[in-house]
């Protein structure tokens, strides 16, 4: 599906947890799980738009779940219902959906964002592993569409105390999907490689154009340079070359 550049109207924008917000924008939006939009709710400053994953689409209303990190996401958090926002998308290549067998989804923090839509659209029910710092959030949106739910927190306040990768069992699954901080995803990748299970990783890179023109988000893969914004953000784990 070709991306569009258009204006949308914010229908709601609510804080779901400390610095995590859920914004809904109507109407007539399209996209696949794992794809994203470049969002812009300002004129000239900050200069670039911000890539945010599709967290859900229901009846054309699109949901974004985002964490306030810097000035762009801070400006998003101040939007009120009725405000307008520019959207460019849907962009990129999302998660494969025609998967058979048991599926494991493992996320860290805001990495949960694209998985809501994924769980919804997957043909099979998946197990969900969520790692959080203090406490989990947004789990009510996940629960109904998953088989088993595993939670860990660094704080120990909820679920397993420690990293989510400590309780993740890749060998139980025929495919694994992951999104979260890079160090976590690297561990997941290693575990899946050892267990010989295919893993799909949603990558993040600083982006300028978001559509594949500037090469600002290129990464080295086993099949040459790939653009996170166009060929990704979802890549097969074994494709990714971590160079450091």
């Amino acid at each position, binding site marked *: 599906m070709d991306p*569009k550049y258009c204006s949308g109207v914010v229908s709601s924008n609510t804080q779901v947890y400390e610095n995590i917000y859920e914004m809904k924008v109507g109407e007539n939006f399209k996209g696949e799980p794992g794809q994203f939009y470049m969002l812009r709710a300002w004129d000239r*400053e900050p200069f*670039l738009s911000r890539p945010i994953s599709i967290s859900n689409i229901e009846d054309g209303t699109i949901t974004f779940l985002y964490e306030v990190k810097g000035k762009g996401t801070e400006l998003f958090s101040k939007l009120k219902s009725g405000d307008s926002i520019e959207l460019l998308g849907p962009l990129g290549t999302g998660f494969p959906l025609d998967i058979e067998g048991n599926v494991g989804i493992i996320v860290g923090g805001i990495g949960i964002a694209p998985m809501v839509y994924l769980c919804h659209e997957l043909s099979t029910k998946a197990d969900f592993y969520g790692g959080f710092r203090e406490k989990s959030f947004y789990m009510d949106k996940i629960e109904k569409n998953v088989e088993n739910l595993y939670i860990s927190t660094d704080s120990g306040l909820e679920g397993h105390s420690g990293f989510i990768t400590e309780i993740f069992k890749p060998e139980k699954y025929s495919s694994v999907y992951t999104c979260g901080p890079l160090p976590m995803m690297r561990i997941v990748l290693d575990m899946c490689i050892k267990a010989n299970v295919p893993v799909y990783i949603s990558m993040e890179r*600083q*982006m*300028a154009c978001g559509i594949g023109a500037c*090469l600002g988000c290129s990464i080295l893969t086993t099949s040459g340079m790939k653009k996170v914004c166009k060929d990704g953000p979802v890549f097969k784990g074994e494709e990714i070359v971590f160079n450091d």
Partner: protein
Amino acid sequence: MTSVEICGVEFKNPVIAASGTFGFGREYEKFYSLSKLGGICTKGLTLYERHGNSGIRIHETIGGLLNSIGLENPGVDAFIEEELPHMEKHDTVIIANVGGSTIEEYIMAVEKLNKTNIPMFELNISCPNVKQGGMAFGIKSDVAFKVVSEVKKVSKKPLVVKLSPNAENIVDMAYRCCEAGADGLSLVNTFSGMAIDIYEKKPVFENTIAGLSGPCIKPIALRMVYEVCSAVDIPVIGIGGIMDYKDAIEFIMAGAYGVQIGSGNFVKPDICLDIISGIEKFMKDEGIKSLEEIRGIIRRRS
């Protein structure tokens, strides 16, 4: 009304997509018909494929961005085979932007491009010159003179030399490129800049230094274009931070024949269309019949 001839090539309007910000057009054609553009500069092409730089490649700044792409491109042959036929479907001027690390590399790339129907070349002399220890060809006028005159000897198409704002003396650089046979000049390329990650206590970019573009550089770019237009007689294409028709008109009034839009494409994928229609409206409102009437008008008055 907005049409303009640059080095013998006819452009339907002065608005050209800048190299490296527009790929080979494939991404933008999803948003509008590229036949509406005056022209498109290709991503910088080198003789052989390049992977570009590793590490962070984009860092936002106030009013712009730093980039360290490192000339990632498929190489001239792959471009000619895989991208050019598609690009040529659009009714717009294609400008091949050519980079290289040695004079030989430039020459060989241009010789391959000579055989295509591309009507104009843009020589990017901001690339690091490996024989001069990595200092760009575009810093010292004498080095630029050398590369331009060598490339001019083989080029069968009008040769526009793209100047770096990091040149020691932009006016002297322009003069010398003229002397070396440049048919036109375009400026500016990105400014050398940098950023530091204060928590990691190291430069944001692996190469430390990256290229600054966007509206933040506009006042300096405009000054350079003005100075160069006042000094040389060949056509000049203005580049640097152009975000709307007003910016474009400023460059034209400073003396530019055409303008290139770079970082602006990231902010709004169809920004070039806004600029084209803005220029048309401005001309109508102000009773301007052709761009020639206002080109360099501020020099005529001061």
